């Protein structure tokens, strides 16, 4: 069950192109599972809280990794240790944690966020991480991930780090001669769609995004074309969806 708390900022620092924010929120930290998210807000301006994946949890502290884009994330980026924020979480469905070896994880840019906690919990399954970005500034904490994965493949579009190119290329190559128990992916919808295609009938779980007002199922704003027909709510039916569940043709 989600908790709504006023919580304190423990630390905040730049992480290359992103920001790493640590917030003390024991009840949420206790219950969170990888893939779940939280709504963060600073009172009434901007009006709506903002959804962020819970990147990691440690001794009652929640870690977030986010990109400063519009005015909400800009205000969050200007927080300082000791400031308080309103936090609602944990929210939504988590990734299913498998026990079989060599699960595949795909992260595009800030899509790395939910995988900090997931790789820790899947460490014994020796996951394989495919991590792509536009440029090196979007590839963070490679040490953390290298230590906890069997293999980590990094690509950047400008070649400033790892192999030059799109992350989908090494994924395609890998899947052509491996059959992982599951593929997890988080990133731009275009990437997720491509990953879903490449994975074919391999079980695939994707972290989807939609504009959110409430984050806990009451506004019906976060509709995504899923299931036979109609829409599902990203905030409660997701954000983690089976790739089969998404109606890609209806997703713009």
């Amino acid at each position: 069950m989600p908790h709504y708390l006023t919580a304190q900022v423990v630390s905040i620092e730049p992480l290359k192109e992103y920001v790493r924010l640590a917030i003390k929120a024991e009840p949420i930290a206790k219950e969170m599972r990888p893939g779940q998210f939280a709504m963060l807000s600073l009172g009434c301006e901007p009006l709506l809280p903002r959804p962020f994946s819970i990147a990691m949890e440690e001794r009652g502290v929640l870690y977030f990794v986010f990109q400063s884009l519009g005015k909400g994330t800009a205000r969050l980026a200007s927080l300082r240790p000791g400031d308080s924020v309103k936090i609602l979480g944990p929210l939504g469905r988590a990734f299913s944690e498998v026990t079989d070896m060599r699960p595949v994880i795909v992260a595009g840019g800030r899509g790395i966020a939910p995988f900090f906690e997931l790789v820790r919990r899947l460490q014994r399954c020796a996951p394989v991480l495919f991590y792509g970005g536009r440029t090196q500034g979007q590839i963070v904490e490679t040490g953390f991930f290298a230590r906890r994965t069997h293999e980590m493949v990094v690509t950047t579009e400008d070649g400033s780090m790892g192999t030059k190119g799109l992350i989908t290329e090494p994924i395609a190559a890998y899947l052509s001669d491996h059959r992982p128990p599951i593929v997890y992916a988080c990133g731009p919808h275009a990437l997720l769609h491509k990953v879903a295609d490449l994975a074919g009938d391999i079980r695939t779980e994707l972290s989807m995004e939609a504009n959110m007002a409430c984050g806990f199922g009451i506004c019906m704003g976060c509709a995504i074309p899923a299931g036979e027909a109609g829409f599902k709510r990203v905030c409660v039916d997701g954000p983690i969806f089976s790739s089969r569940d998404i109606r890609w043709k209806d997703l713009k």
Partner: protein
Amino acid sequence: MEGLEVSIGSLRLRNPVLLASGCVGYGEEIAQFVDLAELGGIVVKGLYMSPRVGNPPPRTWETPSGMLNSIGLPGIGIRAFVAEKLPPLLERRATVIVNVCGSTEEEYEDVSRVCDETDGVHALELNISCPNIRANGRCPGMSQQETYALVTRVRRVTQKPLVVKLSPNVTDIAAIAMSAQEGGADALSVINTVLGMAINIETGEPRLATGMGGLSGPAIRPIALRMVYQVAQVVEIPVIGAGGIVEWRDAIEFFMAGASAVQVGTANFVNPRASVEILQGIAEYLARHNKRLPDVVGQCRIAPR
């Protein structure tokens, strides 16, 4: 919260704080944060006879101190609601008001009939004001004739308390309010969302898939408050105020403008406990000024020019 009971027609509410339609679904999720038995009541998401999927995404966009939505009334239909969603609400001892929708006058009647026949439904709120169904935000609540016609028809099929929810997108809200009263409304909800729009300047596309949507939140509070005042000046029936209420002070303003009760909508998205915190604040304000709610309702009067 003692001594805060209010009567909306024959409907007796524990207190004047209601959850606004479309801002708490069918109550399950919000019940994780607030005890529905502690509130005046819950107006559930708009319901038609048949299930509906609603509008395509994107459905929401944030604006300065407000938000646009074009949800478009997705829902499971009144029968499924009565079968699956109403019982848990009643177990929670919630006062349940159904927000009644229809694509035709017949459908409005049919939904109202089901509400009339269902014991657990305490009152009806006739939604003649959703801006997200027809092009250009058109709705019956924009015409005195359509409002009067629809309210009279629905009035015939139910004796339960009938609240009519007005649209702010009109020249003369007082005139529409009079039509609803003449049609047989027991109370009026003022206001639904204000028709608005936002555009993505990188693509030239509207921010909402439907183009236009309903503006809600603190941005519209001064407009809502003005309309509550204008309506309360002319009608005899109680007015339920809504529009940008996020804290108890806002609620007091609406009471002073003439509202007998208030609805909390968008605030639930920002703070799931907003409604109970507002109720608490109202009680403390009244205690501090040792007043009763009726002393405050309509206290504000504009001096004639």
